[in-house]
Each structure stands twice: as structure tokens, then as C-alpha cells.
């Protein structure tokens, strides 16, 4: 990690703060529009999480085995979500 140029840590901090404020505003503005609310909040949370992972955890500079160590549980989580979906969408079995 010490081999690469310094990341824009403070810019990322500003973006994270801005997205947090935007999330709260979004939650108030679109409270009646549920799909817009959920999609907007989901996307903003995903962008924030990606910024933390890529820049603060330096995933942007990692390759190979580290990505494999991350992607493997992500695949398992995806399988678990697919497993949960029928229960969530059809709670009474129909």
C-alpha cells in the first residue's frame, strides 16, 4: 500500500458527509414515493460503502487473492439473499 500515491482521503470524507445529508433529505422528501425512496437510499448507501471500501480500505489498489477473499463471501451472501427472497415475497406460501 505504501507503493501507491496518497488517496484523496479528505475528498472522500466530504463526499461521505454530503451523501449522508442527501440520504436524510431524500428520506424526508420521498417518504410518499416508496420505490423512489428505497432505490435512492439503496444507491446512496451502496456508493458510500464502495467509497469506504475502495479508498479507505484501499481495495482500489488490491488485486488477486484479496479480491478473491472478498468475492467468495459476497457470492455466499447473494445465495443467502436468493434463499430468503421466497420467504420475503411470499410469506404465506403463495
Amino acid at each position, binding site marked *: 500500500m505504501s507503493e501507491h500515491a496518497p488517496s484523496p482521503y479528505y475528498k472522500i*470524507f466530504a463526499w461521505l458527509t454530503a451523501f449522508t445529508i442527501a440520504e436524510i433529505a431524500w428520506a424526508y422528501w420521498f417518504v410518499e414515493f416508496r420505490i423512489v425512496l428505497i432505490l435512492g*437510499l439503496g444507491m446512496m448507501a451502496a456508493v458510500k460503502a464502495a467509497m469506504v471500501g475502495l479508498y479507505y480500505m484501499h481495495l482500489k489498489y488490491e488485486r488477486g487473492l*484479496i479480491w478473491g477473499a472478498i468475492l467468495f463471501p459476497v457470492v455466499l451472501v447473494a445465495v443467502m439473499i436468493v434463499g430468503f427472497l421466497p420467504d420475503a415475497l411470499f410469506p404465506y406460501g403463495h
Partner: protein
Amino acid sequence: MEPATAAVPAPKREYSFTPGKLAMWLFLGSDAMGFMGLIGAYMVLRITSANWFRPEFDPPLGIGLTAFMTFVLICSSVTMVTALSAIQKGNRKRLLLWLGLTILGGVVFLSLQAYEWSHFISGKTELAAAFAKTTGGAAPFTNFQATFFSCTGFHGLHVTVGVVYLSCIWVRAWQGAYTATNHSPVELVGLYWHFVDLVWIVLFTIVYLLPDSVPN
């Protein structure tokens, strides 16, 4: 004539790799699955619940308190990454300063969470008293309470462990254990701390910003 070894340049490493880092990432991956289990349970129970009964859910100071808690964790992430940057440049004093601020951020977060929990628990107690007065029975324990305390409690436990972990690293740094070329433990504690921040980003959205708004 140049030596034969000079003809083959050493491969340029674009990233550092240590067994400790791989182990930490494997741990974080398994930990993420644990969190996803809890968050998945929260979502399934929330979506399938005809009436998401959450009588005492009235965040103190509104959503402002948890938004401030989020801001505190974001600040502690930037202080953590600045601490790592400091020791990469060999600046031990700056490392101690920024690590100390990161620990302070974790303690502030935990204090605010304790305040929030005490509010919820006292609300539950008041509700139970009112319920017993009118019906003679105990107030029902809801899925919301179970999942809320599980998710935020599990995360709070991680923050607590993180504060202890950071404190140990701070003490070792104070003893002069880390240099510009030997600072792997600082990098590892940073990975753990940023993971805690990342999980809170997801929890904040799902538990605090969505609860009244997901479709039944």
C-alpha cells in the same frame, strides 16, 4: 558487461500483501456474512410483518442523533486513514494523535448509542407499565425490538472491540513499535475499523431511514 541478473528487472509490486492482511480480509468476509444474516432477518421480518409494531421507537433528538453518530464514525474513518498515512511517512507523533482521535470517535459513538438504548429501554418500561395498568398483562415483545437490538447491538459490540483493539495499537505505537517500513498492525486495525464504519452505513439506511417506508 553487466551481470546477468541486471537483464531481468525485479517485478514492480503495485500493492503490498501480507498473510495478516489476507487473514483480516477473510475474517471481515465471514463477519460480513454474520451481519448479512442479521440484516436479512430484519428485512424479512419487516417485509412480512402486517403491522411493524414499534411503539417506543422515537429516536431522541429525532434522526439527528443517529445522523450525528454516522458523522462521528465517518470522521473516525478519516482520522484512522490519516494515522496510517502518518506512519507510512515515519511520523510517530502524528500516528499517536490521529489514532487517539479515532479512539475518541469510537468512544463518542458508543456513548451516544448507550444514550439511545437507554431511551428505548425506558420507553419499553413505561409502555409495559401502561399496558399492565390497562390490560393487566405484559406489553408484547415485538420483532422490531428483537431485530433492532440484535443488529445495533452486534455492531456496537464490534465498535467496542475496535476501541479496545485501537487502544492496544496506540500503546504499542507509544512504545515505538511501528516505523515507516514496519506498520502492518496499524494497517490491519484500520481495515477492521473501516469495516465497522461500512456496516454502519448499511444499518443507518436500513434501520433508521427506511423503517416506516418499506412496503408491506
